[in-house]
C-alpha cells in the first residue's frame, strides 16, 4: 500500500516536472505532451479499474474513449452552429461549457458500457477479450460511415471548451486542468479500492465463487467496475477531444484500445500510479524513438515484448524491486 502511494506520487511529480519545464523553459509543446500524458494516464486509470482491480481484460476501451470524445465534439459543434442537438422529446441545445460536456461524456460512456458489459460478462476469459474488441469495432465502423458528424473525416471545433473564466487555449492552463482532473480521479480511485466495493471487487477478481457464496453476485460487482471504468475513460476521451479540438473515428480504433492497455501494462497492472507512469513513458518513447527512426513502432514492439517477458510488473514492479534491494542492503 505504502509503496503504491510513493510510486504514484513519484509518477505524478515527474509529470508535473515535465509540465513545469515546458512552462518555464518556454517550450509549449512539452506542455501539450504533458497534457496528453495526463489524459492518457486518466484513460489508463479508467481501464485499470476493469483490468487491474477487476481482472477484466477489455480490448474495447477505445469505444469509451471515443464516445467521450464525440460527446465533447458533438455538443461543442452544436453550440457553435446554434442548431439544437435534438428537438424531441425535449429541446436540447449544444454547449461549450466544459463541466457539462464532461458530465455528458461520462454518462454517455457509462450508458454504452452497460449493455456491452452485460453481454460480455455472460462469458469470461478469452471470450471477454474478443467480445469487447468486437463491440468497439462495431462502433468504429458506425462512426466511420455515420455522415452527421463528419464520418471518417472527424469533427473539428477549433477552440477548447469553456471552464469558468480560464484561458483553456493556453497550453499551461490546459495542462493544469488535465493534471488536476487526473489527480482528483486518482484520489477517488484510491478511496474506491479501499471501500466496501473495493473489497468486493478484489474478491470478484481473485475468487468469484467465494464472493457468490457470501451472497454477493460477482457479476454485479464486475459490471459496476466495468461501468465506472468506462466512465473514467470516457472523461479522458472528452479531455483528449478538447486537447486536439478535434475528434475522429481514430479514437475508436482497436489500436487505441491496445495503446490504452499498453499504458497500464508499462506502468504496472492494478497499481494506482501505473497508468500515469506508463503513459509518460509511452509518450517519451514515441518522441525519442520517433525522432530516431520512422520505424519506431518496431522498436516499441520489441521493448514491450521484453518488458512483459521479464515479468517485471511494469515500472511499478521495477520500483518495488529496487526498493526491496535497498531495504535488504540496509537490513
Amino acid at each position, binding site marked *: 500500500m505504502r509503496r503504491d502511494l510513493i510510486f504514484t506520487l513519484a509518477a505524478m511529480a515527474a509529470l508535473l516536472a515535465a509540465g513545469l519545464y515546458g512552462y518555464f523553459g518556454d517550450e509549449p509543446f512539452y506542455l501539450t505532451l504533458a497534457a496528453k500524458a495526463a489524459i492518457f494516464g486518466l484513460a489508463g486509470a479508467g481501464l485499470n479499474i476493469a483490468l487491474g482491480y477487476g481482472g477484466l481484460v477489455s480490448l474495447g476501451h477505445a469505444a469509451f474513449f471515443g464516445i467521450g470524445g464525440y460527446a465533447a465534439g458533438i455538443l461543442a459543434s452544436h453550440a457553435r452552429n446554434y442548431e439544437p442537438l435534438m428537438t424531441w422529446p425535449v429541446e436540447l441545445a449544444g454547449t461549450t461549457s466544459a463541466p457539462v460536456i464532461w458530465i455528458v461524456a461520462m454518462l454517455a460512456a457509462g450508458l454504452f458500457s452497460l449493455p456491452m458489459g452485460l453481454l460480455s460478462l455472460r462469458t469470461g476469459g478469452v471470450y471477454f477479450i474478443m467480445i469487447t474488441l468486437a463491440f468497439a469495432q462495431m462502433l468504429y465502423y458506425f462512426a466511420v460511415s455515420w455522415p452527421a458528424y463528419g464520418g471518417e473525416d472527424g469533427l473539428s471545433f477549433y477552440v477548447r471548451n469553456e471552464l469558468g473564466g480560464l484561458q483553456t487555449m493556453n497550453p499551461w492552463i490546459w495542462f493544469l486542468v488535465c493534471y488536476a482532473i487526473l489527480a482528483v480521479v486518482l484520489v477517488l480511485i484510491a*478511496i474506491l479500492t479501499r471501500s466496501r466495493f473495493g473489497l468486493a471487487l478484489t*474478491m470478484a477478481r481473485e475468487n468469484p465463487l467465494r464472493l457468490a457464496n457470501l451472497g454477493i453476485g460477482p457479476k454485479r460487482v464486475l459490471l459496476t467496475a466495468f461501468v465506472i471504468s468506462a466512465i473514467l475513460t470516457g472523461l479522458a476521451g472528452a479531455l483528449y477531444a478538447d486537447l486536439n479540438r478535434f475528434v475522429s473515428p481514430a479514437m475508436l480504433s482497436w489500436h487505441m484500445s491496445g495503446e490504452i492497455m499498453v499504458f497500464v501494462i508499462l506502468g504496472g497492472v492494478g497499481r494506482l500510479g501505473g497508468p500515469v507512469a506508463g503513459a509518460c513513458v509511452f509518450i517519451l518513447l514515441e518522441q525519442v524513438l520517433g525522432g530516431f527512426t520512422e520505424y519506431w513502432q518496431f522498436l516499441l514492439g520489441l521493448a514491450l515484448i521484453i518488458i512483459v517477458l521479464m515479468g517485471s510488473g511494469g515500472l511499478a514492479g521495477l520500483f518495488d524491486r529496487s526498493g526491496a534491494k535497498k531495504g535488504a542492503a540496509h537490513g
Partner: protein
Amino acid sequence: MAEPLLVTSGLSRGFGALKACDDVNLDIRAGEIHALIGPNGAGKSTFVKLVSGEIGPDTGSIHLLGKSVETLPMTARAGLGMARSFQVSALAPSMSGLEHVVLALLPHEGGVFHFLRPVARERELRDRAGEMLARVGMLDRAEIPVAGLSHGERRQLEIAIALALEPRVLLLDEPMAGMGPEGSARLAALLNELRGDMGILLIEHDMDTVFALADRISVMVGGRIVATGNADEIRSDETVKTAYLGETP
C-alpha cells in the same frame, strides 16, 4: 422435534456414467450437528456443491427453511441463510483475514455498493469482524494478507467467514483437514457452542470428532445414503460396517 431447516429429497447428479449423488434424502434440523461421513469419492463434496448451488442437480429438490431453492443461484441461497466452508480454502491471497470477514458481514450490513468510504474507517464493522476472528482464535493474525497465512490458519479463517454470514444452515466441508490437534480441539469446542444457533452439516474424516460431536450421522457410499442415526446406532449398523469399513460380519 423441530422443523428441519434443510431438506433434500431424491437429489441426484451424475457426471457421465458416474452417479456422484444418487437419490439422496437428508435433512438438517435446527440446533443439531448432522455429520456426513463416507469413504473418499463417496459423493460428499458433490452433495455440498449441490446444496450450496455451485452445481445444479439432475433431479430432486432442496428446501431451505421451507422454500424450494434448487433452481436459485448461489447468492440467493446465501441470502436465505446458508453458509459454506470450502474443502480447499477459497480465499483471496491479497486480502487480509479481517477484510475477508468484513466482506462476509456486508450483505447484512447495507451491501457492498458503497464506494467512497474506506473500510478502515468503518469501526463497527471491523470490531464485529474482529470478534469472529477471535472466536476462531486468530485475532492476532487479522491484518496479515492471506498469502502469508499457514494452511491451518486459512482453515480457521474459513470458519470465521462462515460465522460472519450468520447462517441458519452451515455446511462445513472437512473443516479440520490439515489443522493441528490444538486447532481441531478448539474448532470442536466452537462447533459445540454454535450448535444451539443453527443447523450444521459436518463432513469430516476424523471419526473421533464426528462421534463426539454429531447428533446424527449419515453414511454415504457410492453416492447413496446407506444409514442415518445417532452415534451408537451407526457404530452398530451392519450395513455401515460392510460398506464403509469394508468389514465382513
